[in-house]
């Protein structure tokens, strides 16, 4: 609403096409943006509190329930943190299977976001259903097939798509036979074509011409595009062990949100997720993914967050390609799980959830009981950056009708594929013009 002083508030009370419940608000005074607020009102569920007193072995299945969209990410960060505490390392085929199941989650989660949640912003629809009904049926169907292929990986390794049951500290309950991969391989070969087409499709969208000089943060690994392992690095020159996370990053609780917000210890914001991974690890993509990125007009660096939709599509292609590579090289392990002894210790892990860095820390008693748990999800870390994007990127359209501004704000937030269920301990648009 505008008043005589030229002040108005633009707000959205429930942001659609994101996982969980959030809202936003933009405050405008005399034609200038003076405040932006990305608010998470997803109710708190207190995971870090009730994990205390539970067995270390329960953490993967319990933390999976933080998010139905990226349960593998939670399971992976949990098992690696426990293994860090016990001083063991899971290698060989078991490590490869974990990477494979993570590829599955990247494919299903990214495809859902790219084709069904974010693409409607670029093409002017309310959602995928009306997008499909208005001539994009083939694209939506292709995306559904691609998403299904990602889910097929997760279900094959994990038992089911949501809250898989086969991941445990030390490895798996049961590992697949080499010969059982044959149908999945065929599915993934078809999916690779779909992924190439998805990169091409998204590269044809119109992108607002905005960039920011982000501090990108992601895992960095010598030999691989990062998923389960690596140091935490930033485009600003940070290069640390995962166990040093709390020395360089902190969480703050702000009044407008049920999510904690992540900052560097100097108070500056940073960005994690596909755009960060791409900028820091471009050369570690497979040749096919690098070529597709180049053909889509992406250089080795991309600072336009609206183009993150292409980057996600490139990561889908990479994940399909990588899954096929892993399956081809797979040798059945001797045992589904490596041996270990619980001990009194603190374990740390960060893995690359589809939305970005997911940090877990557990302090354990001698018998493996959890004494303290800390979980830092990617959307909490990205909240300050989301608010800064809202301040920076809509100044040029403030003369537009309120609906246009609102849509651009929503598109800007969706660049992050925010997962609000995760971040609650983590949205609603409100534009306040006074």
């Amino acid at each position, binding site marked *: 609403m505008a008043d005589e002083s030229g002040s108005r508030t633009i707000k959205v009370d429930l942001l659609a*096409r994101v996982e969980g*419940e959030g809202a936003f608000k933009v405050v405008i005074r005399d034609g200038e943006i003076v405040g932006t607020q990305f608010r998470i009102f997803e109710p708190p569920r207190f995971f870090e509190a009730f994990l205390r007193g539970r067995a270390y072995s329960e953490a993967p*299945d319990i933390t999976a329930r933080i998010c139905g969209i990226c349960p593998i990410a939670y399971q992976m960060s949990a098992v690696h943190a426990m293994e860090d505490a016990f001083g063991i390392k899971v290698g060989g085929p078991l490590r490869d299977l974990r990477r494979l199941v993570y590829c599955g989650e990247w494919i299903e989660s990214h495809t859902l976001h790219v084709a069904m949640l974010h693409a409607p912003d670029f093409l002017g629809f309310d959602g995928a259903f009306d997008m499909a009904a208005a001539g994009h049926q083939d694209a939506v169907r292709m995306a559904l097939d691609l998403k299904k292929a990602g889910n097929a990986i997760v279900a094959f390794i994990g038992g089911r798509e949501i809250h898989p049951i086969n991941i445990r500290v030390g490895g798996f309950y049961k590992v697949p036979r080499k010969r059982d991969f044959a149908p999945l391989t065929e599915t993934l070969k078809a999916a690779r074509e779909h992924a190439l087409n998805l990169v091409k499709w998204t590269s044809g969208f119109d992108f607002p011409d905005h960039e920011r000089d982000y501090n990108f943060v992601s895992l960095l690994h010598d030999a691989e595009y990062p998923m389960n392992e690596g140091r935490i690095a930033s485009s600003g020159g940070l290069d640390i062990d995962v166990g040093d996370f709390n020395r360089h990053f902190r969480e703050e609780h702000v009044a407008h949100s049920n999510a904690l917000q992540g900052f560097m210890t100097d108070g500056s914001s940073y960005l994690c997720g596909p755009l960060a991974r791409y900028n820091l690890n471009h050369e570690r993509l497979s040749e096919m993914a690098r070529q597709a990125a180049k053909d889509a007009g992406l250089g080795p660096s991309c600072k336009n967050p609206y183009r993150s939709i292409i980057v996600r599509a490139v990561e889908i292609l990479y994940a399909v390609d990588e899954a096929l590579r892993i399956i081809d090289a797979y040798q059945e392990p001797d045992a589904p799980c490596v041996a270990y002894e619980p001990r009194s210790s603190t374990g740390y892990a960060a893995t690359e959830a589809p939305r970005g860095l997911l940090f877990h820390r557990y302090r354990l008693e001698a018998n493996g009981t959890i004494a303290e748990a800390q979980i830092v999800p990617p959307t909490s870390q990205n909240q300050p950056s989301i608010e800064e994007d809202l301040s920076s990127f809509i100044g040029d359209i403030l003369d537009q009708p309120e609906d246009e501004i609102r849509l651009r704000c929503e598109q800007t937030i969706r660049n992050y594929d925010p997962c609000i269920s995760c971040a609650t301990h983590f949205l609603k648009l409100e534009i306040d013009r006074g």
Partner: protein
Amino acid sequence: MTPRKKPRLGVFKFSSCDGCQLSLLDCEDELLAIAGAVEIAYFPEATRADDKGEYDIALVEGSVTTPHEAEHILDIRRRTGKLITIGACATSGGIQALRNLADVAEYTSVVYARPDFIDTLETSTPIADHVKVDFELRGCPINKAQLIEVITAHLVGRRPATPPHATCVECKLAGHVCVMVAHGTPCLGPVTHAGCGALCPGYDRGCYGCFGPKETPNTVSLTSQLSGIGADKQTIQRLFSTFNTNAPAFRKEASRHGG
């Protein structure tokens, strides 16, 4: 003949992980057909739309954990024909019901720097504690084939075929080796509601009860078996205190073991 108006479907979220409503989007082969058979009038995870008017079917995910949610479910009930709860949070309170036996103020202080910013209830409760529910679909997460069955059955006006017997029965039908008898692995299959297809035993692990209690579960007999294979009180208490911790049969059994 004028075409019949499509039934209006609403999908609503309370305190939850979003996984059960994601199950609808995970019906990749059926999704566009479902979107053709019903009017997806409100489904904020998938599409922009305002929550207004009446619904023939409401799918409700999540438990009630805030004063706002307790009000909101009353409003949805008033505007809904068939209200169907989906998943363990909506049918029993979910994992977040672990707070029900804890000090919520202490919980808040552990997670949040500013507990005064947090508005939450002392308990996490199932939807049926607040309003009449027409059908409850179990699981953490629900089984998507069962979700399609439930939607289809409601569209044609018959009772959904979701057997209330034990996971143990599904396990025998699947021909799995009994993990408790053969390996001494604690398993909740004999007291857990069917629906997953006995997934865990098929992967050489014990059932952890994510579909909640079956009808008339004999938990006392099971826990005496569990003690017999060496499970201590704490292990048994934890087994019954997960995603359906607030389901009466599981809550009672956990309390017998110190929970």
